[in-house]
């Protein structure tokens, strides 16, 4: 008669209560439930949906911690308090407790809002529909704070989470039924609803907006500018960061997307735990490289003039596109979402390739919306079922042919 039994008895006693799904969600999250299968024999994997979700979250934790340090680092650099990183990845200028605390207090509320609001809606829907609370939000809730600018107002994030979870997921029937990646739906909503907080040179560095307001109020201060590399390139200016900075992540950007190194580590973790699809990741990189090379050729062949507004991004070396913006993060953590990606093996190659290809296409040809990865993944989410359909039909056709040849 331990705690486990007591909890189970509690559940049996209250099985008609409306709030039971909420209780059992927390119960199964913290403990292994005490229920057994009633009819027939089942083989059950130990990695149920909750464990899968937790694995993905673990893969993202390094990015989150790095994001906290980076938020403080960008803030202090912009204020002129510290010098830029000199000694590689483990520079003491970067990994200081000072940096961490600034980022921590800025990013923790984002995480709390994202989980609080998102899970709140999941619980409400579970109670209304009378089913178990679905675990799908665990990963989304972690993705959301990683893909927004650090200074996004909290109420905007809350509104966007409500929109993303209700319209992006619950209307389709909840976890596993959604067409669009909910985290990206949330970001896209923010992006179109509040563009001044999602793009430009003020939102990527903590404190830049406040500083602007202080200047507007008449204080004699220097404005902070924290343009992302994509923004700089779109304007055709020189980029002030080295390729090493871009790879290691000492650049302004959304909270968790800057460090390609840590994203790669997370990606490897996902591949080895067989949760993320390496086919999608690889083909997406291939797609981006192909599109990048095409643009490089166009730029170097002199087909467009240097004064063209596309020239800056077009002439950026193709490998740089892989390091900047949200490309790496989107490819590893968002494009591989098993619900919204293609399911068939061949379909995954096509889907991934087009994600990469279209990402760079949107980036270059739409300087007003420099982040193409988000839009490319959402677009391909919509087409994933179509791709799967034709892959399956192609297979059926081939087999029919074989069958005919055999019987004839």
């Amino acid at each position: 008669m331990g705690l486990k039994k007591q909890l189970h008895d509690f559940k049996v006693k209250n099985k008609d209560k409306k709030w039971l799904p909420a209780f059992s969600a927390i119960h199964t999250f913290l403990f292994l439930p005490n229920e057994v299968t009633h009819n027939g024999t089942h083989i059950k994997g130990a990695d149920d949906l909750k464990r899968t979700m937790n694995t993905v979250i673990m893969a993202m934790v390094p990015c989150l911690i790095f994001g906290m340090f980076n938020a403080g680092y960008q803030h202090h650099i912009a204020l002129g308090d510290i010098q830029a990183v000199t000694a590689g990845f483990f520079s003491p200028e970067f990994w200081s407790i000072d940096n961490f605390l600034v980022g921590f207090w800025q990013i923790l509320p984002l995480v709390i809002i994202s989980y609080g609001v998102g899970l709140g809606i999941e619980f409400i829907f579970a109670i209304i529909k009378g089913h178990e609370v679905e675990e799908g939000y665990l990963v989304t809730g972690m993705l959301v704070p990683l893909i927004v600018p650090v200074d996004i107002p909290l109420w905007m994030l809350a509104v966007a989470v409500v929109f993303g979870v209700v319209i992006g997921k619950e209307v389709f029937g909840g976890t596993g039924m959604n067409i669009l990646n909910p985290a990206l739906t949330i970001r896209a909503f923010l992006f179109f609803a509040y563009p001044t907080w999602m793009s430009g040179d003020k939102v990527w560095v903590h404190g830049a907006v406040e500083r602007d307001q202080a200047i507007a109020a008449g204080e004699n201060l220097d404005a902070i500018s924290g343009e992302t590399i994509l923004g700089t390139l779109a304007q055709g200016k020189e980029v002030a960061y080295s390729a090493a900075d871009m790879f290691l992540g000492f650049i302004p950007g959304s909270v968790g997307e800057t460090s390609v190194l840590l994203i790669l580590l997370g990606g490897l973790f996902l591949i080895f735990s067989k949760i993320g699809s390496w086919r999608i990741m690889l083909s997406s990189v291939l797609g981006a490289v192909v599109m990048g090379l095409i643009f490089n050729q166009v730029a170097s062949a002199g087909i467009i003039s240097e004064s063209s507004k596309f020239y800056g991004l077009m002439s950026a070396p193709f490998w740089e596109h892989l390091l900047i913006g949200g490309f790496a993060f989107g490819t590893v953590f968002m494009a591989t979402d098993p619900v919204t990606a293609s399911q068939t093996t061949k379909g995954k190659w096509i889907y991934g390739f087009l994600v990469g290809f279209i990402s760079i296409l949107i980036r270059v040809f739409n300087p007003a919306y420099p982040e193409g990865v988000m839009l490319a993944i959402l677009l391909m989410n919509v087409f994933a079922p179509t791709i799967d359909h034709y892959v399956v039909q192609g297979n059926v056709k081939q087999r029919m042919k074989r069958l005919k040849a055999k019987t004839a």
Partner: protein
Amino acid sequence: MGLLSKKDAALIKDPLADNNPITIQVLGICSALAITAELEAAIVMSVSVLFVLGIGNVVISLMRNIIPSKIRIIVQLIVVAALVIIVDQVLKAFAYELSKTLSVFVGLIITNCIIMGRFEAFALANGPWRSFLDGIGNSLGYGVILIIVAFFRELLGAGTLLGFKVLGDPIEKTGVYAFGYENNGFMLLAPMALIVVGIIIWIQRSRNTALVEDH
């Protein structure tokens, strides 16, 4: 309604709720997306459709026995076109700014599926009085949805209603803007109109599950 018999009253009441042209028959979506960013435009559009559909239904109903069925679509088009031109010219004469906002969408009332749909489905088979009621009912049902959608889109997207700054001034930071509120630019884009219509459809069908289609 003592004025109308029960059967006639249903002609007005049904399209307002359980047989709404937009949310149930899913007709006229195009204009519902295009002109609902401002409440004023939506109201003018509703009134225009009310005029065209009310009169058009009566005209078609009066001619229903003399229109050869082979060319009935052309005849219907001529009737709508004539009425739409009247509306267009009146708007241009008395509300020029507004008619510029509505631009081609006044002209496109001709192609509004609700109108041709009511001509075909109702006016060709019923007397003028019932056709008139049917036209009024359907255009009211259309207008109600248009106005609801436009209300939310203008309020949340621009912070105004009929052009009045009901939420305060976003530039001078008065009203709710003093607390950091900002307008939701997404509401002014067409996708959000579709989503708002979708939410109305969702609410309506979850209140009356008999309306849910089987698939």
